[in-house]
């Protein structure tokens, strides 16, 4: 700010007051503008996330049915007590865990391998990259229909191939068997989710500086060592995000399971999401469903906190 010589102290004060008044007025209109920009987002999120969440929390403490949700009596922690003794709940916990971990592990290996190979200079690379996306883009219901057909125990092509290859004697029962049903779903899940890992890994790989590879080669590192010491540290950030997202998506996995087995046979494929859905919309027991949901929510939030800590901790190392 230029200072004119010969200004009195009163002039300076007056000018500063004018400036402050101008700035605060413009600051107010700026704040108003920011608030207006945020208003639609806040309104929608409050309506479809915040309010339902609070509703669910309250419902978990009441004895409510789908029809009588508004006049339901308050029953405290009864629903949570019921949860502890509920066999289906614990089966669902186990199934959710198995589904999530194996799907992520399988998709990670498959997707990353695909990305590594498709990062090389091979013919028709872009074509392959494009088509490899398709299993991820199709709706879960389509994946379910295809899975039901391919794993069909009478006319499915998978059983036919297995018998031809001599792996099994007769046609295997997939969706009718409590042992096999979950694995059919896991295989379909891996098929559905691998492209996402491939996509993100490819993006991460593009940013690895070529000279790091060259330096490693000069130091005598072989392919595996180069992968471990150059590739992985560089794509670690992307992988962290991808895995976090996939944990959330797999815990939420509904389409594939519901469309193929509705959680059966005999709860063999019932995950927490399926259990909540069935309890709320088939058994109409809203309070109990909400209680299971609250447990899911707490578990996911704890996982997020733990995960963020682990990620930040390893970055500092």
């Amino acid at each position, binding site marked *: 700010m230029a200072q004119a010589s010969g200004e009195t102290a009163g002039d300076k004060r007056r000018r500063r007051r004018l400036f402050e008044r101008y700035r605060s007025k413009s600051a107010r209109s700026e704040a108003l503008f920011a608030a207006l920009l945020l208003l639609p987002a806040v309104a929608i999120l409050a309506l479809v996330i915040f309010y339902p969440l609070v509703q669910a929390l309250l419902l978990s403490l009441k004895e409510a049915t789908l029809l009588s949700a508004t006049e339901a009596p308050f029953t405290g922690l009864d629903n949570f007590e019921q949860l502890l003794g509920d066999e289906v709940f614990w089966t669902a916990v186990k199934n959710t865990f198995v589904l999530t971990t194996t799907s992520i592990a399988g998709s990670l290996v498959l997707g990353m391998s695909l990305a590594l190979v498709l990062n090389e200079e091979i013919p028709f690379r872009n074509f392959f990259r494009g088509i490899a996306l398709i299993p991820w883009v199709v*709706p*879960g219901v389509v994946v379910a229909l295809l899975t039901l057909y391919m794993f069909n125990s009478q006319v499915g092509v998978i059983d036919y191939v297995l018998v031809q290859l001599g792996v099994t004697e007769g046609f295997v029962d997939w969706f009718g068997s409590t042992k096999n049903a979950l694995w059919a779903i896991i295989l379909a899940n891996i098929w559905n989710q691998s492209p996402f890992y491939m996509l993100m890994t490819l993006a991460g790989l593009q940013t690895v500086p070529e000279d790091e590879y060259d330096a490693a080669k000069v130091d005598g590192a072989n392919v595996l060592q180069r992968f471990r010491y150059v590739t992985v540290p560089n794509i670690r950030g992307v992988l962290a995000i991808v895995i976090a997202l996939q944990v959330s998506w797999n815990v939420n996995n509904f389409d594939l399971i519901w469309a193929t087995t509705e959680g059966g046979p005999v709860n063999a494929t019932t995950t927490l999401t399926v259990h909540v859905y069935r309890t709320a919309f088939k058994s109409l027991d809203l309070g109990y469903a909400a209680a299971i949901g609250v447990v899911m929510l707490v578990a996911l939030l704890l996982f997020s906190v733990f995960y963020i800590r682990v990620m930040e901790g390893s970055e500092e190392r």
Partner: protein
Amino acid sequence: MIEAGTQGSTGRRKQLISFGVLLFLLAFLFLPLYWLLITSIKPNQAAFKVPPELFPSEPTLKSYISQLQDRAGFLTYFLNSLIASTCATLLSIAVSVFAGYAFSRFRFPAKRAVLVFILASQMFPLVVLLVGIYILFRQLALLDTYLGLVLAFTSFSLPFCIWMMRGFFDTVPPELEQAAMVDGATRLQALLRVILPLVGPGVIAVGLYSFLNAWNNLLFALSLTSSQDMRTIPPGFLLTYVGEFQYLWADAMAGSVMVSLPMIAVFIFLQRYLVRGMTAGAVKG
């Protein structure tokens, strides 16, 4: 990693192994797609043949035609999906552009807390939200309506879309809109005319993400609609081909192909924008 100019037999052996691995992986990915495609051009009875025909002996487009004839409500489902998904996408784009810009440019109290809450909400189990949304929508008479579907579809995409748009806006220097404002534009005009074109890839990423999630969604669409005319494709297919007409495999596959083609086409061309949006800030450098 293999380079293009590696000499000698080790280089060639690595290329062979690499190609072999690629072949196996691609087989795992593509054979089911091949199966989907050829089943859709078989007549319905042929889908029951054991051993299954690896190549259709009587290829026909009958299944596709019967979808277009709306035999199992296909056209209704398609239209509903189109309306609900498009509106949800437009809403997500508009809201996340404004909110993302606000988070990028302004400071205000509790900003970090709000941002964390928005990200955390992406981790909430959807089925828990569904319970609350169902009760709420019943009270507001939003069940079985387009508006209800659109709002519900926005819920699971919006948080991440806001985060993505903020990331994109962060890459545009504030000097640009300040220059525009000095030239006499209001902040809104500066945003819409100067800044928005620069974050085009972000808008595409947000649009793709929202549309994909809305189009494919089963859980909300199934629970928040009850009448045949309001169903979108996923619940429609579920109730038809896993219910009534379960034996019509060829029809089911034909419908599936028709429903997936638009998404596939769009995605193959625009996927790099989505990747850019998701990896912004995650990738080192």
